[in-house]
């Protein structure tokens, strides 16, 4: 079917407008700011000054010579990779577990895992603030003390003895718990959309549950796997809210608990208020994100999914 351009615009127009307003324009603004020397949000003074690639040169310099920036990069890589694996495979495991439960059980179980995502970020972070608190009031500390595994309260995310692993553990744990529900929901609904007869047929053919998972459920949800992986990778690259609060509240170390996205946020708003540098770092992160996204989609075979048309729509 041929669709006329005007009607296409009519239907897609509102969505395009929203995308432009909330995504494209801020993106351009941020790229633009990265070419200005803006600090302290002094828009009047700096917005029209143009410094070329100076901010990028500064960023490059920091990356090369500032050990704290090395920490940021290492933290980002470890955080994104480990949390991604936890998110995707944790979500997959939860989806599989709930798929083979009866409906009521699985709904309750899924609700439980959705709680972290439904809880406001501040409340959720506060929960873990108390859990990982470095004094005796910290839940983790009091449990470990009760079990006589430690003699004094420990500061897992702060004490240099445990760094960087302590800080990494906390931010990965806290974000991983929020993220698994996403994969769980997507995978679960993907499994549910597989015709029931296919599963029955496999059972009749003599397949055990593990075989059904391996030969039917997983191959038929490859694209969902791709999608969840890429999507989660993007959101993990960009996320900072929980981590920001944990850093601000002094639960995790500000050096080893700081991902690139958080570095951008703190540079722009709390530490040096150097928006020009922050914008450059943010643009750089976007470019890395896009490159990684393309690599991931290629590696996981996204093209094949969108090419083969199933006939005229």
């Amino acid at each position, binding site marked *: 079917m041929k669709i006329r351009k005007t009607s296409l615009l009519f239907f897609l127009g509102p969505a395009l407008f929203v995308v432009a307003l909330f995504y494209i324009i801020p993106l351009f603004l941020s790229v633009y700011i990265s070419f200005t020397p803006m600090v302290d949000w002094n828009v009047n003074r700096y917005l029209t000054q143009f410094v070329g690639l100076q901010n990028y040169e500064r960023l490059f310099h920091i990356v090369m010579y500032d050990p704290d920036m090395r920490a940021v990069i290492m933290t980002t890589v470890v955080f994104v990779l480990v949390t991604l694996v936890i998110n995707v495979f944790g979500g997959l495991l939860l989806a599989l577990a709930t798929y083979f439960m009866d409906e009521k059980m699985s709904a309750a179980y899924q609700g439980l895992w959705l709680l972290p995502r439904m809880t406001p970020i501040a409340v959720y972070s506060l929960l873990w603030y108390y859990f990982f608190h470095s004094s005796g009031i910290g839940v983790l500390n009091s449990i470990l003390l009760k079990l006589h595994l430690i003699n004094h309260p420990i500061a897992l995310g702060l004490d240099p003895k445990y760094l960087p692993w302590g800080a990494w553990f906390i931010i990965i744990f806290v974000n991983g718990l929020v993220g698994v529900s996403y994969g769980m929901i997507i995978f679960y609904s993907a499994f549910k959309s597989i*015709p029931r007869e296919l599963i*029955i*047929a496999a*059972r*009749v*053919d*003599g*397949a055990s549950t593990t075989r059904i998972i391996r030969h*039917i459920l997983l191959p*038929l949800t490859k694209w969902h796997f791709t999608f969840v992986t890429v999507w989660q990778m993007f959101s993990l690259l960009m996320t900072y809210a929980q981590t920001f609060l944990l850093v601000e509240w002094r639960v995790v170390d500000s050096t080893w608990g700081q991902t690139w996205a958080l570095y951008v946020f703190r540079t722009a708003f709390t530490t040096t208020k150097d928006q020009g540098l922050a914008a450059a770092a943010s643009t750089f992160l976007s470019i890395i994100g896009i490159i990684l996204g393309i690599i991931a989609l290629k590696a996981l075979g996204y093209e094949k999914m969108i090419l083969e048309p199933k006939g005229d729509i």
Partner: protein
Amino acid sequence: MVSIRLDKVTKRFGKVVAVNNVDLEIEDGKLYVLLGPSGGGKTTTLYLIAGIYKPTSGRIYFNEKDVTDLTPAERNVGLVFQNYALYPHMKVYDNIAFPLRLRKEPKSKIDSKVHEVAKFLRIENLLDRYPHQLSGGQQQRVALARALVKEPSVLLLDEPLSNLDALLRVYIRAELKRMQQDLGITSVYVTHDQSEALAIADKIVVINKGVIQQEGTPEQIYENPRNVFVATFIGNPPMNIVKGTVLEDGTIETTGSRLTPPPAVLEKIKRLKLKNILMAFRPENAVVSEHPIEGRFSPMGDLFEVEPLGRDAVVTVTVGEFVIKVVMPTREAMQLRIGSKVYVNIDPSTIKYFDPNTELNLEYIEA
């Protein structure tokens, strides 16, 4: 060489009783058709035999061996679904090989078996296609191949032809029947299409609301339905039902006409003290004409509609409160005038009598 026996099998889903206290024996090597309306419990019965559902109560036997607690694989059944349920991500070859691979049979044996069954069903040239590259009829064959390659002791088919066009359906059902006879495999075939059932069944089991209504050969089911449900479910159009009043003198009166029932029927009417009775006759056992015919039971009515269907026509007559359909030669039917007074001349020997309370055929009530 397997016969199947269901012993007082009930299956509940929550409050719904899908299969209710079913006793059924399926003879070795025969093709049984489960026939009934949508929601009647056909698929559930089939899945119970397959071992996909466990009965809520009752036992299932294969050859006197209790298989109630065995898995589908242990029962060694082949199952063909209405939507074929081919694995969409596997080529035809892998679809057929799948059950053998799960049994961990050696590669060469798998290969020869797949080719053998593919040859038998004439799908050898399709082996390296994906299911979505096949037509409905081809998919149906592949599904059949996947069921047969296991050399199952029982073949179960759930409305296997309902996704095909009418012409192909008639063609493939004949093939299916041939194949079943050649292999001599005990088969249970589910359909809600009564002409399909009549065409291929050794025995038909009519099932409604989870209860077996009648079990018998296609002839028995067609000629002598056990109750009103079967009478009005089988046949196209199905049997006509007319209600009558039993008079003092032993005759039956309906819409102004009188009929003397056969002595055996009369005796049962008396014994059951029936005041009313339901009479049923097949559309092809009556003729509509302008004048009553000698020796026939001929209630009078208004000609409502004549639908020519080629050689025969369906003639609709309203007789009192009843709508009656008659199948007769188109040539004769076209002589009649719509709206005119006509007689429905029924062959009295073909009339079946039903108790209006139990809706049972009097012939099936013990004397």
